[in-house]
């Protein structure tokens, strides 16, 4: 914990594009205030680079409030820096000490091809969602909100799962590059709610099959995803998905297009 301005040594992954080779490049940043956020520290570095006419470091970020899920980065070997329930944008520099060396890499997984430097393509997450991460309720279909009673504990548990921000830290931190946590969270959320029941079997089947075809790995229950998830989503939701999938595979009677 530092309270004075710091000098930091950064090793940042630079790679022009998916087709080119990348490497860690050393940078030094002076005058880092402990009140800065991690991304503001990168902003300062980028300003320096632009002034020198160099290509600034590309990284994804947007809301900087920990909710949009756009920021990523593997910091010192851990997704989002490995602090409990924290996204990269909410990591503040007071957690570091003067003279520290910080290694920054992109989120890496087969399913997340690199775009440039620290930015990766996470559209595989959307592709899984397209296969069933929804309830087919067209606009205008809805009945009164209170016509469906949902016990508070169930609503709360569904909310725990729904808190997923789709950042992909679960995939990036998984020793297998598996996407079970973000997918499990959605399948679990919708399986818990009565509205989600009619489509539950087909949803589980289609999403799991899509997940497998996109280059995500297989879950071997390390629970590293749960540990790095900035929203603290439990692997209980993966278990619920496993249950849903098992049930669906052996009871769903319509032919499934895969």
């Amino acid at each position, binding site marked *: 914990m530092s309270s004075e301005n710091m000098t930091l040594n950064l090793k940042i*992954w630079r790679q022009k594009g998916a087709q080119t080779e990348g490497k*860690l490049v050393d940078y030094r940043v002076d005058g880092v205030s402990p009140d800065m956020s991690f991304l503001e520290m990168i902003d300062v570095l980028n300003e320096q680079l632009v002034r020198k006419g160099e290509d600034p470091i590309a990284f994804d970020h947007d809301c900087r409030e920990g909710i949009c899920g756009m920021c990523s980065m*593997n910091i*010192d*070997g*851990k997704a989002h820096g*490995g602090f*409990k329930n924290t996204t990269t944008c909410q990591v503040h520099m007071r957690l570091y000490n003067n003279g520290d060396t910080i*290694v920054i*890499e992109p*989120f*890496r*997984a*087969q399913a*997340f091809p690199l775009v440039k430097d620290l930015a990766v393509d996470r559209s595989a997450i959307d592709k899984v969602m397209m296969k069933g991460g929804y309830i087919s309720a067209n606009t205008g279909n809805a009945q009164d909100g209170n016509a469906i009673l949902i016990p508070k504990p169930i609503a709360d548990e569904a909310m725990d799962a729904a808190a997923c921000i789709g950042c992909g830290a679960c995939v*990036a*931190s998984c*020793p*297998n*590059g*598996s996407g079970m946590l973000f997918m499990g969270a959605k399948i679990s959320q919708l399986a818990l709610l009565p509205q989600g029941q009619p489509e539950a079997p087909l949803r589980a*089947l289609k999403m*799991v*099959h899509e*997940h*497998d075809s996109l*280059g*995500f*790995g*297989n*879950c*071997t*229950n*390390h*629970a*590293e*995803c*749960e*540990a*790095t998830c900035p929203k603290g989503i*439990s*692997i*209980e939701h*993966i*278990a*619920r*998905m*496993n*249950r*849903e*999938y*098992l049930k*669906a*595979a*052996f009871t*769903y009677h319509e*032919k*499934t*297009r*895969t």
Partner: protein
Amino acid sequence: MVTSAVNHYFRSSIGRKQLVAVTGLLLCGFLVGHLAGNLLLMVSSNAFNLYAHKLFSLGPMLYVIEAGLAGIFILHLGLAFKLNMENMKSRGKYEQKTKTGRGTTFASQTMPYTGLILLIFLVLHLISLKFGTHYEVTVDGVVMRDLYRTTIEYFSSPIATAWYVFAMLTAALHTSHGFASAFQSMGWNHGKYFKNVKRLGLIYAILVGAGFAGLSIWCHLKGG
């Protein structure tokens, strides 16, 4: 391509993982039975040999059971191997990767390696004991294989004993992750109970590991 959900199950990540889980749990069950039988070594040589004879006398039934066991084992191993090969491809290749300390454990990380050690162990185990030196003994007028003697003789070697102890500690490590993991894979994880499942897995791993390893040492002391 139109396939049925059931067909796809056996090719999906979750389906295959669940098969690894079920076969793993069955093997866990087998280990308990095996340990219970082996504990007869400590009762008397006759008790142990009679137990072994009883098993051998099942005749063709024994082959069916053995084939089933082998099938379970091969399925467990084969699927785990396949999943692991896929995972080696899908995982991110980092320059630097560290654990948070809240998820991955030494046991979970080493599952493929402990599994491999157990496979080697199994082959050697069958060669040295099941297909080991054939002695005969007469108990209550019945001629039967003296497996007791084979066992005690085998464990008279300190190297063999050490290897067994090592292998059994490996088995403990493997099941310490595998037991609870299988429950999770099958979807039997409820916030209220899962802590206890994990505890049970740990107790199981310690008991089975210590049981087999302890027996090896006991045999060694008995023979030496």
